[in-house]
């Protein structure tokens, strides 16, 4: 069978499913009508360039949302003050490259009524302005989804707004300091030249005064945050990077002002440069942080905030056929916060269960893996309990709410996360720790210098100035760049690979890792049932044929096990007649005029199938946590299907790579012992902990860390969230549609579901951390070497400038090496 490639989404698919369409003489092929529709639209707008321009060739499935709920968007619509227009900011999901941005902008700006449409290439945020008399928001959103992208409401959180304002403030402070420092350099260089070849005394004074005027705003405007922090820290005798900066820049400034009067040499350039470079460092840090947190914020906006409330419960409760009763009821969509205990909520397939409750009617399978770690979907029908946050897979359910607000299982977990967050120690960065020792040491050397000069009979003002000169030279300008530059290089490289990092502390913690804990379901395993093995019992049957027949029947079923069988076949389907699903047991249907039954052992016994395989065969698989289903026709069992949550391809390799790094690997899971042990054994992990509740996972990590170990927790579900927060480094694997609490509570997020990124991340962190250490050494080295010159009174502006330039070049050059780490 020929495999074709879709001209729109680049997905490969069998020829039988192809959709063909002629475009001005050219025959194009698509995987589905949706893709064809998008191509048609793009073509009719004359935007075919999109297909030439796009830079990716891996397949991506376009999203086809039939209906867009405009209510969450409506509240974000603003009136534009001047004209009669409206404006909104939204996120557009599914953008993968610059051409996608281009296509969206073109399609939107060609739509009648849209006055302005601009997308941010980096953040995929769109600002759209339109004339409400010509077009409505619903039409605009439909337009975006008609080309296969998914618009989503966007609102900035308070924290994010603050972060953005802070970055902008830093940028203005840096720009101002940079502009003044560059002006200052003109006069400093003239003064340097004057030291060697002589300079007219009046001109020297003029240059010095101009330098003074240029330096004042650098210190007292750009450097104000540092001065404020120093004063705050001074009360507790707490020496941070800020105090070092203030001491260094301040002493250089005071020393220089004094020197103007006595006709000596000035150090205004040193003073201004220290501040400029430090602010640059802070700015770099804030963008590195801002980028990752913007994406993380977007990932965490996915939680359900609304539910379908079934009104008029009376008739539901009393009706003898509850299903019919509900369907005639009015269903209102309301915010979750307004729902009270005892009310009825309906959940349709694919939706998340909003609150805890007891099922009243309907039956379905529910994926609770994200809450409990249990890998198999759980069958639920009237009387069963459901947990908020789990996903309803196949049928519509109506349940009565038993817990709301803070009482729900989900809230309990969130509380544990918050509690762990507040207890989490603030990690002091390496540079800050060193500064904590360095500042007192320098102050002591300076004092000793003053005392030494006094003893030798120097006048008090020159003794004082000698002491201050020690402070001038000791302040390492490039220290402020040492960490941020390396962190910036690292985060940029990591995010291009799909690893998002929050802050530089993560690098230090990761490089010192001793233990790594993996969650099982969804982390080591795929997280959904997959066909593992087929055992053909009837020697006369071909394996391929058996699978195709089973897949044909199961393709009509909505059951998760059916999906596993269908997904495993290669797409050759037979026509099926008389299909029937037997709830909770299996399916039957007629293929090739054979009446085929597929289902559980009890279904086989009910259908009096002879020739059943020995129970031991099935038991062997069931023991290791797999599900076994049978296939039979003509009263004989023909095949056995083993279905389980399979291990990700790369899991074993990943574990081995991590072990090679000398890190201890363990698995903790909320799943049962048999399954957890079997899976752990298969990936070569000896230490496996099963039946762990979310709080237990957190305790386990707490215990390991008590002995001074650094733990990396890898998880993906809500049940991992407390553990992710508790661990030195929490690493979440984003599964896209999940409730994002796991993402919110972690330091590192893998956007791509590939475990190999983890050892890669650890190695990169180790290397980056050693670069940071070298940077800090380089930053201090030249200044420390120059201290004796200051003590002996040989301090010269050229020495200060030289130390500054050399250490900065070292730090920048060394940080750039991170780019070569691939």
């Amino acid at each position, binding site marked *: 069978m020929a495999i074709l490639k879709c001209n729109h989404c680049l997905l490969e698919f069998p020829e039988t499913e192809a959709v063909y369409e002629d475009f001005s003489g050219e025959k194009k092929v698509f995987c589905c009508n949706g893709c064809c529709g998008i191509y048609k639209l793009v073509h009719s707008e004359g935007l075919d360039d999109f297909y030439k321009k796009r830079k990716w060739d891996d397949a991506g499935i376009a999203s086809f949302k039939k209906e867009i709920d405009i209510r969450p968007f409506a509240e974000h619509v603003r009136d534009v003050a001047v004209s009669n227009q409206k404006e909104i900011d939204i996120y557009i999901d599914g953008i993968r490259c*610059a051409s996608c*941005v281009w296509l969206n902008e073109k399609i939107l700006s060609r739509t009648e009524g849209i006055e302005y449409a601009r997308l*941010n*290439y*980096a953040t995929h945020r769109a600002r759209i302005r339109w004339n409400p008399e010509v077009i409505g928001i619903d039409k605009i959103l439909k337009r975006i989804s008609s080309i296969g992208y998914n618009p989503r409401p966007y609102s900035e959180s308070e924290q994010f707004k603050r972060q953005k304002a802070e970055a902008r403030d830093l940028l203005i402070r840096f720009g*101002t300091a940079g502009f003044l420092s560059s*002006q200052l350099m003109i006069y400093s260089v003239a003064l340097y030249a004057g030291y060697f070849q002589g300079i007219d005394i009046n001109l020297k004074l003029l240059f010095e005064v101009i330098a003074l005027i240029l330096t004042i705003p650098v210190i007292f405007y750009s450097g104000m945050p540092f001065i404020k922090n120093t004063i705050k820290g001074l009360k507790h005798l707490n020496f941070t990077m800020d105090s070092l900066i203030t001491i260094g820049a301040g002493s250089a400034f005071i020393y220089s002002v004094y020197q103007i009067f006595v006709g000596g040499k000035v150090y205004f350039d040193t003073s201004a440069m220290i501040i400029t470079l430090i602010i640059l460092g802070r700015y770099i840090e804030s963008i590195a942080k801002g980028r990752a947190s913007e994406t993380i914020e977007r990932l965490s906006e996915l939680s359900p905030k609304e539910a379908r409330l079934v009104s008029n419960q009376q008739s539901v409760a009393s009706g003898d056929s509850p299903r019919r009763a509900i369907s005639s009821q009015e269903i209102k969509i309301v915010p979750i916060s307004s729902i009270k205990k005892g009310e009825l909520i309906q959940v349709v397939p694919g939706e998340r269960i909003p609150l805890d409750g007891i099922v009243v009617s309907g039956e379905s399978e529910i994926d609770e893996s994200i809450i409990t770690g249990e890998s198999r979907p759980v069958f639920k029908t009237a009387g069963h309990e459901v947990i908020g946050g789990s996903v309803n897979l196949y049928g519509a359910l109506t349940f009565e709410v038993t817990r709301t607000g803070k009482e729900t299982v989900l809230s309990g977990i969130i509380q544990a996360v918050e509690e762990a967050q507040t207890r989490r120690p603030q990690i002091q960065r390496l540079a800050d720790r060193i500064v904590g020792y360095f500042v007192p040491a320098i102050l002591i050397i300076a004092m000793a210098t003053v005392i030494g000069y006094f003893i030798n009979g120097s006048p008090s003002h020159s003794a004082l100035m000698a002491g201050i000169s020690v402070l001038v030279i000791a302040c390492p300008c490039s220290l402020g760049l040492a960490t941020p530059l390396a962190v910036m290089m690292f985060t940029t490289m990591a995010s291009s690979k799909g690893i998002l990092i929050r802050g530089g502390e993560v690098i230090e913690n990761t490089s010192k890792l001793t233990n790594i804990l993996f969650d099982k379901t969804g982390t080591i395993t795929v997280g959904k049932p997959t066909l593992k093995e087929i055992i053909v019992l009837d020697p006369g049957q071909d394996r391929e044929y058996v699978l195709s027949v089973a897949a044909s029947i199961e393709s009509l079923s909505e059951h998760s096990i059916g999906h596993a069988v269908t997904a495993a076949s290669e797409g050759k389907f037979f026509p099926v007649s008389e299909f029937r699903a037997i709830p909770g047991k299996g399916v039957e249907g007629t293929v090739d005029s054979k009446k085929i039954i597929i289902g559980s052992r009890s279904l086989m016994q009910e259908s009096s199938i002879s020739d059943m395989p020995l129970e031991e065969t099935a038991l062997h698989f069931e023991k290791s946590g797999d599900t076994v289903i049978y296939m039979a026709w003509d009263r004989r069992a023909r095949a056995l299907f083993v279905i389980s949550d399979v291990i990700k391809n790369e899991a074993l390799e990943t574990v081995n790579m991590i072990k090679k790094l000398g890190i201890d690997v363990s698995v903790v899971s909320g799943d049962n012992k048999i399954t957890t042990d079997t899976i752990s054994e298969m990936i070569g992990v000896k230490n496996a902990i099963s039946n762990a509740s979310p709080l237990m996972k957190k305790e386990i990590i707490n215990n390991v860390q008590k002995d001074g170990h650094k733990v990396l927790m890898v998880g993906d579900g809500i049940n991992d969230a407390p553990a992710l927060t508790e661990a030195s480094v929490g690493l979440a694997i984003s599964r896209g549609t999940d409730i994002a609490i796991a993402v919110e509570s972690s330091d590192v997020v893998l956007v791509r579901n590939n475990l190999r990124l983890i050892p890669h991340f650890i190695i990169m962190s180790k290397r980056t951390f050693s670069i940071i250490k070298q940077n800090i050494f380089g930053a201090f080295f030249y200044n420390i070497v120059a201290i004796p010159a200051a003590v002996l009174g040989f301090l010269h502006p050229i020495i200060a400038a030289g130390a500054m330039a050399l250490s900065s070049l070292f730090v920048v050059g060394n940080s750039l090496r991170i780019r070569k780490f691939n």
Partner: protein
Amino acid sequence: MWTIYFLILLSILLGLGAWLLFVWTVRKGQYEDMEGPKYRMLDDDDE
């Protein structure tokens, strides 16, 4: 000598102009999309 005074004044005025321009660009949010302009300039706009 007056040439030096003139040039000093000129350089400071030019610098001040550049600084004002810079503050204006920050306020206009021109640093918020660092990726876009490089693509937009290559895009032949037919409208």
